[in-house]
């Protein structure tokens, strides 16, 4: 009896082992958000085109889930954001995060020392929280930067900001107010409990409750389509969240060419470029994979 059970167990084990890919394929992953998934798809397609075996495990969860999976070795590569390392290493106050170069270097150093995780080339775009105003308002009052905005609001500008509770209460807004010398009264704020940027963008575009300024992410796809204009964080108040592919060292050692394959891709992005790509997923509803394939083809990296 127990012999039968044992041989059955062995058979099942063998069957599973045979079914799971034994060759060391690179497990490419991503967060759930559309930008992460799209970048993940691009990297997966590029690696595959270069003859590296890949497994698609994109869109597996929010930041903590993906991060934990990487540390546990269940995934090998995904796109993180530079500023998030401040949270991972409990060091969000370091001013280095507010600069792309320094934040990248600090994050890469900490992550390699602690976890043997290598940061590849970052994109030169930040997905940080920012404010965007309606284009008509921006034109009428010559608003290009946050400094312009601060002067305008402090001088009695008629502003109505729509943002999430997290943005209003967790210190982000307070920090912007301090840096740019303005204060918003509660009557100038519309706070959404679970506010996503798509909701704030939509409301500002439609002028709901008089909203003319919206909380956005720097690379949001909806900004241009909604006729909003993003305000430059000219005094670097906010941490920079530049997309950066991160990979486990052991995998990179096995396929050292990955660093060179990913580099031109990441260098090809800027804020407007990412916004346009995100818009195709977020606004037009194309699939992240389709957008990824087409982008790589136009760049000539994929046949």
């Amino acid at each position, binding site marked *: 009896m127990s012999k039968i059970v044992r041989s059955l167990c062995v058979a*099942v*084990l063998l069957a*599973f*082992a045979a079914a*799971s890919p034994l060759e060391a394929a690179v497990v490419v992953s991503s967060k*759930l*958000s*559309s930008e992460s*998934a799209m970048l993940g798809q691009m990297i997966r397609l590029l690696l595959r085109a270069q003859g590296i075996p890949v497994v698609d*495990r994109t*869109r*597996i*969860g*929010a930041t903590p*889930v993906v991060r*934990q*999976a990487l540390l*546990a*070795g*269940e*995934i090998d590569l995904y796109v993180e954001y530079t500023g998030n390392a401040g949270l991972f290493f409990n060091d969000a106050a370091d001013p280095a995060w507010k600069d792309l170069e320094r934040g990248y270097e600090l994050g890469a150093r900490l992550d390699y020392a602690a976890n043997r995780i290598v940061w590849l080339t970052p994109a030169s775009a930040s997905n940080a929280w920012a404010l965007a105003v309606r284009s008509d308002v921006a034109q009428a009052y010559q608003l290009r930067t946050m400094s312009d905005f601060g002067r305008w609001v402090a001088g009695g500008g008629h502003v109505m900001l729509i943002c999430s509770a997290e943005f209003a209460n967790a210190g982000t807004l307070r920090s912007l107010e301090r840096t740019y010398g303005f204060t918003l009264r509660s009557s100038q704020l519309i706070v959404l409990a679970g506010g*996503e940027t*798509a*909701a704030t*963008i*939509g*409301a500002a*575009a*439609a002028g*709901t409750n008089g909203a003319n300024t919206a909380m956005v992410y720097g690379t949001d796809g*909806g900004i241009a*389509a*909604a006729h909003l204009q993003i305000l430059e964080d000219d005094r670097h108040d906010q941490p920079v969240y530049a997309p950066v592919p991160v990979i486990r060292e052991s995998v990179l050692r096995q396929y050292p060419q990955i660093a060179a394959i990913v580099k031109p891709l990441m260098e090809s992005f800027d804020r407007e470029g990412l916004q346009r790509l995100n818009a195709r*997923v*977020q*606004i*037009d*509803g*194309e*699939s992240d994979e*389709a957008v990824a394939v087409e982008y790589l083809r136009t760049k000539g990296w994929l046949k």
Partner: protein
Amino acid sequence: MELRLAIALSPHERIDRLGLLLSAAGLAALVWLPFVVFKSNRIMPGEPRELQQVLPAWGALGLQTVLLLTAVVALFITDARRRLSAALAGVIVLALALAAAANALTPAGDKVVRVAPGAAFWVLLIALGLLATDAITRMRPGPVVRVLLLATCIGIAWAALAAGMFDHLSVMREYAVNSGRFPLELWRHVWLAGGSLLAAVVLGLPLGILCHRVPRLRPPVLGTLNLIQTIPAIALFGILMAPLGALAARVPAASALGIRGIGAAPAVVALFLYSLLPIVANTVVGLRRVSQAAVDAAMGMGMTPRQVLSRVELPLALPVILTGIRVVLVQNIGMVTIAALIGGGGLGTFVFQGIGQTAIDLVLLGAVPIVVLAFSAAVLLDALIEVLDRTPSVAPQLDP
């Protein structure tokens, strides 16, 4: 006494109360609520569109006439078959009107604008659905007829979707983009819900029998399972990620079996744990329901305890056990949705991606099939339970 007399003499006596409620709701929706919502792109807030704005005059009039006739039937006709026919006619005309509205509002070749059902459509659909459900209940159909009815409805809906009738509707636009992934996620969803159920039956049934045989075990076992049931699903998924991840890292065999901290494993384990309570508890209750006389008679016939269990107790307890399984299956189909947050996949992937992009249409692409799955599972298992409950259990026979 006086009150009863007053009711009996009231002129409203012949008006069907449910019909009155549903007709009033439907009428209010038609008059005050938008029939469809038009969005200039996927995430913009929708602009309401009235029936008259989106359909040609004869179309709007035709829909209103059919709905009015349905309301008349709902108010004054008591025959359940006619009520059902009227409700179904209403649903069909409503669906045709929606498809026509979506086609009319979408410029040719456009891929950006979205047309979604408006509040009036949903209210009317719910009212007609309730009317149909009420009629079916009054007809008291047998289990086989109920399953056939369900299959017919799903078949017609599927045929209409496959024929491209609703291709201009926002949900189907999302489907078109995700058509490659949809069958995979659907299958994964069913597999996660069914697999965890199967594991729970394999372990829960013996555990229930053991609890029945050894009453001392009941309080600790059921207490523990009750405790597990109170942990919020998302927390349990989170709790399981760490130990399963550690297991996968230390034991290569576990990893080869697909046991990992993210993905299907924590989802299946969590659902399995949730599934245990209804199955164990119902097995205990079902076995206790078996009359002592039947057990005594079987033993008097010279059956061994094992024979008593397999030939008398379990068959008699089966309907109650199946009720537990029904609870678990419906519960699992809903709960698997959260598996998408830990890489487990399933239809929840669409739901959470849609929430992230504030694309309600994408949320619906995940949510509507989940509702249909859960509803179908409930109807199927209810029918099965009824069939088993009606058939007299097989008379115990001695071994040849």
